């Protein structure tokens, strides 16, 4: 995020695009509510009537899969009606002319029919965004989990640049990162194309710096992404590019990747799979080696939160069982492979990290120990430098010329549209009471009792009527790739023809349905759009029994002997 979470409530206008704060980050949703209380305007673009839409001044309930049409149309209006911040564009950006060329085609009237939003509404929203004085964009998986994710992110950034909403308090653009340390994993270089601190592996000077620091020759070839692993195990023609070993730490691809059937097959066919985790999970069923690690609260660590804030997570209790800390395990394996990599504690590792990354240099352990939350970049180790709240101050950008680059792109429809065999659109969404693959929240008593297997499929009441479905009835949801069983939840908050399922259930496993279509650049799968069919189950008694039995079977596979854990 280019700004801080605490700044959200000071924005004059919040442009919330494909982001459901109430379910993903209740604490960020709190800031959105406070912004509203302090008089901010809210424009919410989401195909569902989410909580933010309910309190929004404008809810653009666009048809799923038409993000870029709407974004480009908004830009079109801002240009046509001369609402640009010409001074900011002139001083701090490049490529505006080519951008205008592409955007000309996306008139509000032209996109109205496909986005199901009237031209008038598009014009009004564009004016509100451009003229508020302090507009802030928040976006989430509704943007990123599409085949055209990166283009839409650039499209939103274009809006911020052309209206000068950058480099000042309470403006900017923010992907609200989902997981507690996804920002941190990126910061630390757990990415195929960058070292820690986003330093590229293909830049010789940087590579030499790390080669000197680590004392070894480094490969100059970017690696592959997590979502490409199934391809590289099963379908990769070139033997040199095939994957034979998969060292998985704190992940559960067999539950959270799309098209689970393919993932399972790839895990089976991969010669050697290592799972290093705290709980048995679906991936563990295919792992050749299980290495038990310490969990959150059982070790010290530094996390990066969604607005680039480094914070300490402290050890509260001694770990149970014969477990070791993640970095300890990796160190042992590395030593056994002839390359010792031993550390005594996290502070020692952290010091090594910040000395290699200019942007993190000042986030010293002393500052973090005093419960500071230091948003990088924080370049000097002195006490006074407590980090940077918002980026691009005075319009300075990371490109070599210090200017922002306009990046126009053409709209592409999602890969799999509804058809008569699968007449409904399907998207994954988040359940507020649970988290990701649910090996943590699913094992918490009160969270489990509040919401349990097999989850729900949110559907428009009319669609439910046509299929003769009632609230709470078990249904079968099927796509070209697979099916799962879950409960029907009729709600007017969902438009006709669309369905939504929360993705952390193991019986109601909606990733059996999702499609593996990846964004060409970010390689993020198109979770938010595929086609599905919902089938009524005549024999509800059988279905209830089946769900209970499957739940017990899963628990048994996970090594649980005791009875209990009833399905809701």
């Amino acid at each position, binding site marked *: 995020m280019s700004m801080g979470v605490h700044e959200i409530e000071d924005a004059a206008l919040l442009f919330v695009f494909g982001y459901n704060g109430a379910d993903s980050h209740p604490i960020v949703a*709190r800031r959105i509510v406070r912004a509203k209380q302090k008089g901010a305007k809210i424009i919410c673009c989401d195909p569902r009537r989410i909580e933010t839409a309910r309190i929004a001044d404008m809810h653009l309930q666009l048809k799923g899969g038409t993000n870029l049409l709407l974004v480009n149309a908004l830009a079109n209006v801002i240009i046509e009606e001369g609402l640009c911040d010409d001074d900011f564009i002139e001083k701090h950006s490049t490529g505006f002319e080519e951008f205008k060329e592409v955007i000309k085609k996306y008139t509000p009237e032209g996109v109205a029919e496909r986005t199901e939003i009237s031209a008038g509404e598009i014009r009004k929203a564009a004016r509100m965004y451009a003229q508020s004085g302090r507009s802030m964009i928040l976006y989430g998986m509704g943007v990123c989990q599409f085949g055209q994710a990166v283009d839409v992110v650039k499209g939103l950034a274009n809006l911020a640049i052309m209206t000068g909403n950058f480099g000042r308090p309470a403006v900017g653009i923010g992907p609200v990162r989902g997981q507690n340390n996804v920002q941190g994993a990126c910061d630390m270089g757990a990415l195929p194309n960058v070292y820690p601190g986003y330093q590229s592996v293909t830049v010789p000077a940087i590579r030499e710096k790390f080669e000197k620091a680590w004392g070894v020759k480094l490969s100059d070839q970017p690696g592959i992404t997590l979502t490409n692993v199934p391809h590289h195990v099963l379908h990769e023609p070139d033997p040199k590019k095939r994957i034979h070993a998969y060292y998985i730490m704190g992940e559960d691809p067999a539950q959270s990747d799309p098209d689970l059937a393919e993932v399972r097959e790839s895990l089976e066919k991969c010669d050697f799979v290592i799972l290093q985790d705290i709980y048995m999970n679906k991936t563990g069923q295919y792992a050749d080696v299980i290495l038990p690690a310490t969990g959150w609260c059982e070790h010290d660590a530094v996390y990066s939160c969604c607005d680039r804030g480094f914070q300490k997570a402290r050890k509260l209790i001694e770990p149970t069982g014969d477990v070791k800390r993640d970095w300890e395990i990796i160190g042992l394996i590395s030593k056994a492979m002839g390359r010792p990599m031993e550390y005594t504690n996290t502070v020692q590792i952290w010091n090594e990290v910040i000395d290699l990354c200019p942007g993190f240099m000042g986030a010293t352990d002393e500052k973090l120990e005093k419960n500071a939350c230091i948003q990088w970049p924080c370049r000097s180790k002195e006490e006074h430098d407590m980090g940077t709240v918002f980026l691009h101050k005075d319009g300075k950008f990371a490109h070599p010329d210090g200017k922002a680059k306009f990046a126009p792109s053409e709209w592409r429809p999602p890969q799999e549209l509804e058809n008569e065999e699968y007449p409904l659109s399907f998207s994954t969404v988040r359940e*507020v009471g649970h988290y990701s693959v649910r090996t943590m929240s699913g094992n918490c008593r009160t969270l489990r009792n509040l919401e349990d297997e097999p989850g729900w499929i949110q559907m428009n009441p009319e669609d439910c009527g046509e299929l003769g479905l009632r609230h709470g009835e078990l249904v079968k949801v099927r796509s070209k790739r697979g099916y799962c069983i879950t409960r029907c939840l009729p709600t007017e908050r969902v438009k006709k023809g669309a369905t939504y399922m929360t993705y952390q259930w193991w019986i109601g496993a909606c990733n059996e349905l999702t499609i593996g279509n990846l964004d060409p650049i970010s390689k993020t799968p198109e979770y938010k759009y595929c086609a599905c069919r919902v089938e009524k189950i005549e024999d509800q008694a059988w279905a209830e029994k089946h769900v209970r039995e499957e739940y017990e079977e899963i628990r048994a596979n996970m090594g649980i002997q005791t009875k209990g854990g009833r399905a809701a």
Partner: protein
Amino acid sequence: MLCIGCRTCMIGCVVAHEGKHIFEVDPDGYDFHPKLKVIKTFNVSVPVQCKHCEAPACMAACKSDAIHIVNGTVIIRTEKCIGCKSCAEACPFGAIQMVTLGSARNADGAPRSVANKCDLCQDQPKGPACLRVCPTAALRLVKEEDLGQTLKNKRLATLGLALGAEAQKQAAIGA
């Protein structure tokens, strides 16, 4: 408008009434029966709970003398409840839910199902747990004096409006 439908209040309610030991016992060894329920409609997300009416329909309907007003709070003593459901039927808000208790048993060994509703955390020193844990402070305990204050504010505001309108009229006449 402040409620974001996250249901933290519902768990807070259970923890306040069942006690903190629930985080250590067998997952099915305690009753998870929130005394308020978050309802999501097209227009609103909000928890529905007992209003502690002054003339409670539930108390009137109860034949087992289980419902009483204790210093302003309508309390159900579930040990006296025979599960006749009259109170649940009588409550116009649907704020009373019949719930089945895990361990309690009737004289004939059958499991007990009793009426369950908000008791304003009667026995909690710090008052209602739901409003303490709500991340957006959407819940507020309205006491008698608060009602009085709200009425006073509204009436003053009404007077203000009337004065404003009057001044407007005078100005129009004068101009």
